[in-house]
């Protein structure tokens, strides 16, 4: 089922549901260390918008309305499956709060996952801007060092190997934020030193 077919089948979010997702994103932003917020502001990843349509169409609309060329259909189709995305040209993160994978979640699970999506996108933006070509080239090897559940998640989502480093940084950043939200700090026992050092260098993580 494509994103567009999917969007025809499910009901649109109500205004209060959109407002709820926006509120969670705001609280997720405030949960970041102040230095990270400053870094994200500097790279143009401190703005966000909740949308209720597949992200391929949403990104295409945002780009065209800002005077950019249309997003190729193949890229739109791939993005239609996404829950969140950072549009570097427009310095904004979009979150698809009405995604079918978010349907029928209980309140706590929904909040935890919207926050995780935001943390992932902020980590992803920092990775795209601050990783070196060598970091990107090492993606396959670095992914092999990741905890098995993270490794399988990234591989199973169908990313290109050139995206592995960014996805690994994004996932690790989201996990470190999940720990921080529970008042844990320091290097987790389950995290490889090389990945931790990469995340520290790229995101400014300093716990």
């Amino acid at each position, binding site marked *: 089922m494509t994103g567009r077919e999917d969007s025809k089948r499910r009901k649109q979010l109500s205004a209060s549901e959109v407002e709820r997702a926006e509120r969670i994103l705001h609280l997720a932003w405030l949960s970041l260390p102040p230095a990270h917020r400053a870094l994200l502001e500097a790279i143009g990843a401190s703005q966000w918008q909740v949308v209720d349509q597949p992200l391929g169409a949403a990104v295409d609309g945002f780009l065209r309305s800002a005077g950019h060329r249309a997003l190729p259909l193949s890229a739109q189709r791939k993005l239609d499956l996404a829950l969140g995305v950072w549009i570097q040209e427009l310095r904004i993160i979009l979150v698809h709060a009405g995604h079918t*994978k978010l349907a029928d979640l209980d309140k706590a699970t929904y909040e935890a996952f919207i926050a995780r999506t935001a943390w992932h996108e902020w980590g992803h933006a920092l990775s795209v801007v601050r990783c070196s070509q060598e970091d990107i080239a090492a993606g396959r090897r670095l992914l092999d060092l990741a905890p098995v559940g993270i490794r399988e998640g990234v591989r199973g989502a169908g990313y290109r190997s050139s995206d592995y480093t960014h996805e690994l940084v994004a996932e690790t950043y989201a996990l470190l934020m999940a720990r921080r939200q529970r008042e844990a700090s320091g290097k987790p026992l389950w995290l490889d030193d090389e990945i931790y050092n990469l995340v520290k260098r790229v995101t400014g993580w300093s716990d």
Partner: protein
Amino acid sequence: MERLSPPVGYMLGEDQQVQDVLAVEAELLRSEGIDPAWPGFEEPRADTTPHQQ
């Protein structure tokens, strides 16, 4: 205008659900003695400014 590479979104596998992702996270947290239950957010002070567009 200059076009960067198409943006890459946050995707789950076709058969992967939100609960699967959070279960991986919970297992990692539990492995170091952290309660994986979602703690929620503290409400912010009134003087903070949202960044929503």
